[in-house]
């Protein structure tokens, strides 16, 4: 059994989480989600798109939420690799595009039904991940940065300058078939079904990632990040874990890419732009590098913030850069851990502690 917290030779036992004063479960209902709470949120999520169709501009909000679903998946996947297991891969966007263009080419240029071709997206992404991963993941951190950046560039180059049926003249495929939801209840309700599809994908991906994070594999990943040498000495084989992880996150990323292509009706080469990667990175860093809720939180903030700041588009990237810089220097763990701690310490004053604080 992998014991990620076992002591190293010559060192005392590290203090475990139990040393902090903890509130009794009954005293902090916000930490333990009740089934009722989840149920209410779930129902709300299901009703929401319908409610939005009745509101002016609600369609646009639905679009934002769908965008949140797509990038939320990608952000969580990237976080799983970079934040949780400490593999500095910059290839996530490329894998997304592999998904998008695979299904795009199959459905647009070849003529396969989008409902079939969309499944090729995650498979192609996993294949690509394995191809990159096999040589790359054996190497130490900085080389991974380089190789994944190189892969990104290579793919961008290849797709942009490729034949018409891939590159669409350099900008991407512009008339990717959509999923035909407009035939169900009419065009004004089309988005609702995209919403549900996105919700399902997001839910499945989030759940899968949550399960992985809390499984022995997840512990192993965190051990890898905290001390690779120690984890190796305890029998964790970093390479196989990293490869699995890489493929796992590629699967959902590719799926998100495929869905995005069919939702937006296009597979665009502009998604290779560095700005998009920065956006994604901020989602992870802002929310909480290496945490579970962090990327979800970060994606949500960024998606809705982007809309608010649409007028200031030029300044937006600058602001993102500044935000990232501030976080890197002041709060490298991201907002979620910082806020969580602030929350705990604030409310810890108001409620009795379970045990006396450790000295």
């Amino acid at each position, binding site marked *: 059994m992998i014991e990620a917290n076992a002591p190293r030779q*010559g*060192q*005392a*036992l*590290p203090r475990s989480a139990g040393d902090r004063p903890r509130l009794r479960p009954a005293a902090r209902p916000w930490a333990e989600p009740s089934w009722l709470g989840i149920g209410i949120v779930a129902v709300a999520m299901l009703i929401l798109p319908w409610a939005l169709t009745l509101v002016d501009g609600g369609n646009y909000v639905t679009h934002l939420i769908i965008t949140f679903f797509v990038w939320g998946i990608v952000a969580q996947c990237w976080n799983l690799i970079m934040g949780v297991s400490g593999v500095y891969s910059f290839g996530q966007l490329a894998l997304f595009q592999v998904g998008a263009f695979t299904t795009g080419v199959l459905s647009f240029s070849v003529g396969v039904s989008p409902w079939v071709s969309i499944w090729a997206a995650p498979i192609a992404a996993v294949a690509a991940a394995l191809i990159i991963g096999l040589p790359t993941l054996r190497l130490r951190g900085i080389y991974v940065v380089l190789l994944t950046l190189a892969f990104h560039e290579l793919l961008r180059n290849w797709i942009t300058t490729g034949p018409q049926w891939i590159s669409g003249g350099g900008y991407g495929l512009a008339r990717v078939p959509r999923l035909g939801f407009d035939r169900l209840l009419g065009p004004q309700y089309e988005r609702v079904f995209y919403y549900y599809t996105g919700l399902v994908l997001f839910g499945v991906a989030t759940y899968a990632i949550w399960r992985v994070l809390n499984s022995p594999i997840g512990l192993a990943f965190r051990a890898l990040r905290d001390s690779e040498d120690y984890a190796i000495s305890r029998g964790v084989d970093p390479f196989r874990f990293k490869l699995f992880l890489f493929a796992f996150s590629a699967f959902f990323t590719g799926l998100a890419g495929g869905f995005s292509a069919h939702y937006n009706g296009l597979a665009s080469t502009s998604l290779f732009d560095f700005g998009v990667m920065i956006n994604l990175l901020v989602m992870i860093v802002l929310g909480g590098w290496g945490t579970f809720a962090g990327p979800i939180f970060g994606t949500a903030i960024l998606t809705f913030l982007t809309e608010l700041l649409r007028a200031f588009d030029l300044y937006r990237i600058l602001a993102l850069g500044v935000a990232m810089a501030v976080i890197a220097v002041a709060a490298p763990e991201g907002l979620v851990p910082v806020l969580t701690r602030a929350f705990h310490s604030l409310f810890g004053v108001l409620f009795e502690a379970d045990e006396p604080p450790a000295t």
Partner: protein
Amino acid sequence: MLKVTDLEAGYGGSQVLHALSLHVGDGETVVVLGPNGHGKSTLLRAISGLIRPSAGRVEFNGVDLTRLPTEQIVGSGVVHIPQGDLPFPEMTVLENLLVGAYRPGAWSERAERIEKVFHLFPALAERKRQLARSLSGGERRMLALGRGLMSKARLLMIDEPSLGLAPLVTEQVYETIDEIKRSGLAILLVDENAEHVAGLADRMYLLEAGVLVREGAAADLLRDEALLAAYLG
């Protein structure tokens, strides 16, 4: 000269040194004996600033060195010759020695200092253009000592000079340390084995589990039968 008071230090969550106090006088050679893993290296590293003490005070000629960055501690004349030698592998012997004279005061005198070091360690002179990574264990040890002497050291702290060396080379190393001692430099030496230091030490301390359990004039401690049994051979 050097006054350490109630020093506490450790790594990560574990504390290695407990309320440790010692002193080294002008021109004195003080030896700290102790078994492996009991904090000898930690002691020197805490004094030279490679690790930060969590409590206590290090004073050298009246100056408080306790939480200063290493470069200032070295600047005040406390030179630490570390365990494992830590040579600069891709530099020649000559370059290694030159780095030792980095501080401005020593740099201007570097030519003379190199002469002195070569005089003390003829083997280094022969190999002055050789890369440090190709030196033998004994040569590395000499390089480490020579490098330490390149600065304007007033107190030399040496960590286990005999570690990993063949008996013959060990003899030479201690003889050289004796010569250094005779030149008037104060020395704080930590070692596991009392055999070679017997002739060198003016005063001795015993370090066990991060605590100094005995101290006294070397002559006194060395007469102790039990001690001789534990720390010789």
